[in-house]
Structure formats: C-alpha cells, structure tokens
C-alpha cells in the first residue's frame, strides 16, 4: 500500500506556506519577480527531494532556505548572459552566506511588511487592492480579474505596474515607524475592508457574494491584529466577523437578497458573533474608538436581538450619532435615517432621506431610493414608493439587487 499520496500533502503545503515563504523571500531578495521564481523552484526541488527523503520537520524553513539558494543560482545564471541590476546581485550574494531568521514572528512580520508595501500611499489606490490580493493573498490574476470584472490582461498590467513602482521607486519592505503608523494603518484597513466588501456585496455582476475574498480579508484582519493590537484593527475585524456571521442567512437558495429583518436568525453564525462582540468590547475598553469600531458596535446590537422587534433602535441611533460626529458621510446619514424611522416612525426617516437628496447627495445611490421607497410603501404611499423603487432599479447594477427591486415593484402593483 502506498503512503498517503505525497502529491496531496504537497498541494496542501503549497496552499498553506507559499504566501508566507514568498513574503520572506521578497524581504530577503528585495525583488518580487525573483522571489516568485525562487519560490517556484524551491517547490519544484521539494517535490523531487521529499519524494525520497520525506517531508522535513520544518518545511517552511526548508523552502525559504532552498528559495534563497535558488535565487542565487538564478541571478548567477542570468548574469552570464545579461546584465543584472548590480544592487540585486550584490544583495543576493550577501544573503547567500547569511542565515535567514525563521522565527514564527519574523515570518508573520514579513507578511505584514508586504501588506504595508502593497498599500503604500505612493501606489495608485486602484493598484493597491489587486496587488495585495495577488502578492499577499496569493489569488491568481485570473481570479482577481473575475472578482473585479476586468479582463485578465488589463489586471495583469495593473499588477505589473504596481510591482514596477515598488522596485523602481524604492518603496521599502518595512513596518512603518511609530510616527507614520496611524496614517499607514488607515490605508491598509481601507484596502482590507474593500476586499471584504467586494466579497460580501460585490458591486457588480450576477452573484451577490464572493466568500473567498471575504475570507482573505478576515485572514488579513487577524494577521494585522496579531501584530498591531490597535483598537481600529479590532473594530475592523469585528465588523467583518459580524457581517460574515450572517452570510448563510442573507441570500435565499435562489440567490435572492433577504433583508436583515426577514433573515432566519437561527442561521447566523454564533461563534463569529461572539468573537465579534468580544473584539468590540476590547476596542471600547482600549479607548479611542474609530469608525470601524462604531460600525461593528451597530452590527453587534443587531446580533444581540433574537427577533427583529427586539432590536434596540435607540442604541443604534446613538451609535450613528457618534459615527456622524467622528466624520460621517451621506451614507452614514442614510443609515441613521433608517434607524430613526425604525425608532420614531417612517415619516421621520423619509424626511431625513429627502434632506440628503435635496442637498444633491446620494442622487445616484440606488440604496437611498430603495430605502425611501420602502418607508413610503410602509406608510401606504404606493404611488411615491413606486417612483422611488423605479429610480433605484434604474441605478442598481447587480443582478440580485435588481431582482429584489423588481419584486418590490411587482408587490406594489399587486397591492394597488
């Protein structure tokens, strides 16, 4: 009988280790492309050698060490027929006789360095997200392109542009200094949240969610928290976990949207909720709560209600008030208006939404129109509700949302 197939174990190891090994190789080599090539060669070498000798005790250390030597080979081989950038060549020669520090902490720091590098403010924000997904999360260019509905060639170009910028502009692989950290953390958190949202509520396309992206965002959030126990990092992770806890309940088997108040709450993931709630408490205890923590706290209030009628809307309105003070946005105002409608009655909510629209804001945001439509429908003003839903439908770009709005319009017709 053959032993459990090595191939399967190798595949699993590749999935678990390749990104970690890559981050460390990038730090050691200072060059993305060389590190990627060295990574592939290290895995090829592993596949051969481990077949005879078995998998070593610390495969990660083996892979990093082999990757380093493969990089030296690659550079020497290349140098024979083309001129290598002298700085890289010198660096590779230097590390060849140097022992890589492979403490667990160091490996994780390497991944964090890589996140900060990919989210450096000198890189175009449109490039930061795909670059992070490619280099830190290990998604293929095709996967990223399909997540953002872009042609793979165009996405590949964006990623190449990002890597060239890092190399040529001399963006360092470092965790920013204490002084720069607050500003730089914000950029990283924003990228992580964008990745999460793209997975939780895809902005376009035929499906509403892409769980792989959300899971990657949560993994990055955990990694950030492990190294930087900043309250806002806790807040963002909590927010993502609390949203994620409802994933199974927010879509019907047909892929249709189910609103929060109509969701089967027994399908909410209690474990994720508990973890999210604990993180919110930790963030509040640490003081200095920011927008992610407040949004997580709002989500936690919803999670606490066993039935929709038990929701503490007064608490939620209060948290939205804090969020507005901390520098709100029209979207925060819209959400607060809905909370006020739930607490004080639909008319107050409609008034607040119309104030936002009258200022010329959110006019093209389909959720502003659908929220107004829903409140008007509940007030019995079907004519105005129909107009609002029609406008929302014109603006919505995502199939499940369009189906939801179409169903609402049909319902209104049936009622009148």
């Amino acid at each position, binding site marked *: 009988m053959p032993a459990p197939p090595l191939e399967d174990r190798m595949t699993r190891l590749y999935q678990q280790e390749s990104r970690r090994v890559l981050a460390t190789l990038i730090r050691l080599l200072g060059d993305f492309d060389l590190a990627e090539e060295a990574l592939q060669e290290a895995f090829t070498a592993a596949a051969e050698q481990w077949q005879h000798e078995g998998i070593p005790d610390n495969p990660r250390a083996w892979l990093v060490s082999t990757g380093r030597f493969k990089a030296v080979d690659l550079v020497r081989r290349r140098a024979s027929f083309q*001129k290598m*950038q*002298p*700085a890289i060549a010198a660096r590779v020669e230097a590390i060849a006789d140097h022992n890589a520090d492979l403490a667990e902490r160091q490996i994780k720091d390497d991944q964090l360095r890589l996140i900060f590098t990919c989210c*450096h403010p*000198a890189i175009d924000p449109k490039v930061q997200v795909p670059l992070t997904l490619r280099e830190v999360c290990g998604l293929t260019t095709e996967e990223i392109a399909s997540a953002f509905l872009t042609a793979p060639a165009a996405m590949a170009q964006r990623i190449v542009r990002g890597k060239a910028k890092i190399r*040529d*502009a*001399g*963006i*360092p692989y*470092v965790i*920013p200094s204490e002084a*720069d950290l607050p500003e730089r953390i914000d950029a990283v958190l924003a990228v992580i949240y964008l990745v999460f949202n793209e997975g939780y509520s895809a902005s376009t396309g035929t499906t509403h969610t892409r769980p792989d992206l959300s899971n990657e965002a949560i993994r990055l959030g955990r990694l950030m928290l492990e190294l930087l126990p900043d309250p806002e990092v806790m807040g963002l992770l909590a927010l993502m976990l609390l949203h994620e806890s409802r994933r199974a309940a927010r879509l019907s088997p047909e892929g249709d949207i189910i609103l929060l108040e109509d969701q089967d709450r027994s399908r909410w993931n209690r474990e994720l909720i508990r973890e999210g709630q604990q993180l919110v408490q930790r963030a509040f205890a640490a003081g200095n709560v920011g927008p992610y923590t407040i949004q997580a706290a709002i989500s936690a209030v919803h999670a606490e209600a066993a039935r929709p009628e038990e929701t503490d809307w007064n608490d939620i309105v209060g948290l939205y008030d804090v969020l507005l003070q901390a520098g709100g946005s029209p979207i925060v105002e819209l959400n607060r208006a809905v909370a006020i409608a739930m607490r004080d009655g639909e008319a107050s909510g409609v008034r607040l939404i119309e104030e936002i629209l009258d200022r010329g804001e959110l006019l093209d945001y389909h959720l502003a129109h659908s929220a107004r439509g829903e409140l008007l429908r509940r007030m019995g003003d079907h004519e105005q509700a129909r107009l609002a839903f029609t406008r929302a439908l014109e603006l919505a770009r995502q199939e499940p949302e369009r189906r939801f709005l179409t169903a609402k319009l049909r319902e209104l017709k049936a009622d009148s």
Partner: protein
Amino acid sequence: MKYMLLVYGAEEGWTEEERHQCMLDSMAICEELDQQGKWIASSPLHPVTTATSVRVRNGNRQVTDGPFAETTEQLGGYYIIDVENLDEAIEIAGRIPPAKIGTVEIRPLCPLPEVETQQ
C-alpha cells in the same frame, strides 16, 4: 537610492521676505543632509521666463523662448539626494519649505546600465 526632488510652485506666491526665509531653511536642510552623506546637489532656478528650449529636428537646431506650459505651478528648484528608500525621500520632501505651498515631486534616478568602459 538616488532621488531627484522637483520643487513646483506658483512663482508669484512669495513675498521677498518669505523667499529669503525659504532659502535659509532650505540651505539648513542641505547642510544637514550633506553632513549625513545624503546630499548630492540642489539649487533654486530662475523663473520660467528665463527658460530657453532647444530642439533638433532633421539636423536643424531650433532655439525658442520658454516652454511656457499652461500650468500655474512651475519648476522652481531641485534637490538630488542619496537615501535608503522612498520613505526617507518622502520624509525629506515633507520638510522642504515649498512643500507647504507647492508640490514636491519625487523621482528615482534611473541607474545607468553598466557599459564596458573603453580603456
């Protein structure tokens, strides 16, 4: 790594006193960078009205006044520095006085290919 810091700003945006103070502050930064071995060159430039453009087309040299781009911000000076990485270049760029009212563009110098030198 070597970087060029290109200082752009509105040429009319300064009083004589401010311009003088800016020179003193800039010179102090250069002095400091020089002591750390990070300064290579720097200079303010005369206003863009003194500029001359040269083009050679089909072997003919054309000399004209200006470039006179349609922008309000003009190149007013430069620094060439040798520092560890972009973050350090950003830190220095942020301390240059004109950064407060204009823009400092950071450009890495492109290393020249190693050419066989003729003995």
